[in-house]
Structure formats: C-alpha cells, structure tokens
C-alpha cells in the first residue's frame, strides 16, 4: 500500500513539476490570469459600485451568485453536522457534578437531582473536573466584547479595508467559541441558545437571497442591487455599495451561527451539555 501510494505521489508530482515549465513566471503582470476579466474589475469597480475594496465588490456584486451559494454551502454544512451528531437524550452515566462556590468542595451526584441547586451556591461543572481558573475566565470575559466589536467593524468596514462578511462572521463565531473554551459549553449555550443559533444561520442565507429577490421585484435582475435605488433613495451606484453591505451582513450572520453550531456539536458529541 505504501509503495503504491509513493508511486502515485511521485508520478503526479513529477507530472505537475514538468508542467510548471509552461506556467507564467512569478509576479508576471502579463500572466494570462491577469489579462482577461481582472483589468475590468480593477479599473471599473469604483465607477460601477463605488466600493474601493475590489475583492468585496467582486465577491458580493460581480460574482454574487457564487457567494450566495457559498453561504448556502456553509449553512448546509451546519445542518449536516447537526443532523449527524445532535442527540436529544442525556448522556449516560454519573451525570451531575457541582462545586460549592464558597468553599470549593466538589459534590458528585449519581443521578440528576429533581430540583437544580441554587446556581449562586452550587455551580455545575464538567464530569472531568475543570479547575476554577480565575485569570483565564476573567481575561476572556474582558476580551470577548472587544473581539465582537472588532468582528462587527470587519463586517461593516469591508468596503474600505480588508474584511467582509466571511471574515467578520468567523471572528464573531470565534468569540462565542472562546467563551465556551474559557468558561464552559453550558455558559456559551445559555448566552447563545441553540434555537437562536439555528435561526440566525438560516436568517443569514434568507437575507442574502431576500436582497436578491427584492432586486428582482423592483424590476432588475436577481442580485442586481442598482434596482434597489428607489427604496434606498440613493443613486444606482451607491445602491450597489449599500446592497453589498446588506448581503455581507447576511453572510456574517450565517457564518457566525454555523461556526458556533459546528463547534458545539463536535465538542460535545451532540449532547450540548459539556465539552472541550
């Protein structure tokens, strides 16, 4: 098996390396990829969409269909993880461990109690005893709002600087994952409920497709944001810029919710009670 694999790898690698002789040189401005449509994007983006970040303009406007179905791919991956892993029944075995907040004494219960003890006296902790790490928990508590603020900035400022819906959505999702890592999965799930996560993921895709359908209803083509100018009360070029912004908000929402959804289901094997 290893010999066969080595033969395949050597053959494919040799073929590819011999093919690179015909490839354009590194950094060649006249390489074929840079001559076909990209000069139009570089030279005309500003007058057609008034968006200085060409990558954002191409992503959300010129190639809007591609990005819409990309968002759908992300949403579908989240749904697939949910359907594969999510379990409704509770995890078997000794299930409840509590820490007495004042003394630090750990209490383990062989079966779930009928009534939860008061959370300000007994704090529920994971089965595999998590230490009470004051510094990590409080530093993350201070940090998370700023991470989320930065995520919103990256989404909203994606027209003028590197950024956009995908990047900002991942930063927002990472802030929730950081909460789950530094505190525990239950805290993160109470702060961002499972139903809300699923709804946000679907809402993101709906916003994207909805903006496209609205353009269709206003008499333009699907995802032709210039048709939205009567509603937005701006000229068609600025309407493109605003349309890109709405679409990026949808992308950010979908990506953030899906990242959290995938992490939660993977980390807790679908039980959503405790995990990494």
């Amino acid at each position, binding site marked *: 098996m290893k010999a066969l694999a080595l033969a395949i790898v050597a053959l494919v*690698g040799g073929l590819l390396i011999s093919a690179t002789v015909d490839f354009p040189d*590194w950094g060649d401005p006249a390489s074929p990829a840079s001559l076909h449509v990209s000069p139009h994007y570089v030279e005309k983006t500003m007058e057609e969409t008034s968006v200085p970040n060409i990558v954002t303009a191409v992503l959300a406007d010129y190639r809007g269909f591609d990005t819409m179905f990309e968002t759908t791919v992300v949403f579908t991956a989240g749904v697939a993880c949910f359907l*594969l892993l999510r379990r409704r029944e509770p995890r078997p075995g000794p299930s409840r461990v509590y820490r007495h907040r004042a003394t630090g004494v750990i209490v383990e219960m062989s079966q779930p109690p009928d009534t939860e003890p008061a959370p300000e006296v007994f704090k529920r902790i994971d089965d595999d005893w998590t230490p009470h790490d004051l510094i990590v928990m409080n530093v993350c508590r201070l940090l998370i709002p700023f991470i989320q603020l930065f995520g919103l900035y990256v989404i909203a400022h994606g027209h003028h600087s590197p950024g956009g819906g995908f990047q900002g959505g991942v930063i927002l999702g990472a802030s929730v994952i950081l909460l789950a890592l530094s505190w525990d999965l239950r805290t993160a799930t109470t702060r961002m409920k499972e139903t809300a996560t699923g709804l946000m993921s679907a809402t993101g895709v709906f916003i994207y497709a909805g903006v496209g359908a609205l353009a269709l209803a206003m008499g333009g083509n699907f995802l032709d944001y210039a048709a939205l100018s009567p509603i937005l009360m701006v000229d068609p070029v600025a309407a493109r810029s605003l349309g890109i912004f709405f679409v990026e908000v949808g992308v950010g929402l979908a990506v953030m919710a899906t990242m959290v959804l995938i992490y939660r289901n993977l980390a807790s094997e679908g039980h959503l009670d405790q995990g990494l």
Partner: protein
Amino acid sequence: MEEYIPLFLTKYNYWVYITLMMIGLWAMIAKNNLVKKIVGMNIFQTAIILFYVSIGAKYGATIPILQHGSGHGHEAAVHAADYINPLPHVLMLTAIVVSVATLGVALALVIKIHQRHRTLEEDEILEQLRES
C-alpha cells in the same frame, strides 16, 4: 546547469505548492488514521489556495484596495497593472469557507465512526466490517 537557474528562480513557487500538495495526497492515500487523512486533505487545500493567490501576484503592484479620497470615483484613472489581480483572492476566500465546512462535516462523520467502531484506524474498521 546554468540555464536552469532562471527557471528555478521564476518557477520555484509552484514547486513549493506541488510539494505541499503531494504531502497532502500522500497523507490521504497512505495514512491509516482517519483524522490524519483529514489533515492531509487540509494540507492539499492549502496548497491549492497558495497556488491561486500566487497567480494573482504582480511585480510592483499593491493590494486590490483602491486608494481614494473623499469623493466617489472621480479621481485619476486606475491602472490594472498597479493592483494585483483580485479574482484569485475572491475565489480563494470562498474556497477557505468551503474547506472549513468540509472539515466540520468530516469531523462529524469521524465522531460517528468512532462511536460505532471505537477506533479510527482504517484497517481495524475494515476488519470489524468484514467480521459482521
């Protein structure tokens, strides 16, 4: 020998990506552990992403974000040679997202396989499947 030096200097970036790609392909074919196969798939995807981004590079050009003043689109003409090709960046932005999505689904499948077979080694799983 001397005629190969310019060839190396202008093309070695492709060779780096091909090496990375072959490492990923090797891991996908030869490794026995399913998680290592997934890692190989990710290395492969990274090689493709680097390849695309390097195609867009131009000497003496800057990132594809236009320098602009307060007005909208009334500045001096923009020359395509001054900005690197934005198209590969867009394509790879979406490819990264797809790679995260496939990674998530692949790990979910791996968890299900581990729950059923209690192992992630491919030969042990195949043995269990033959016995049953």
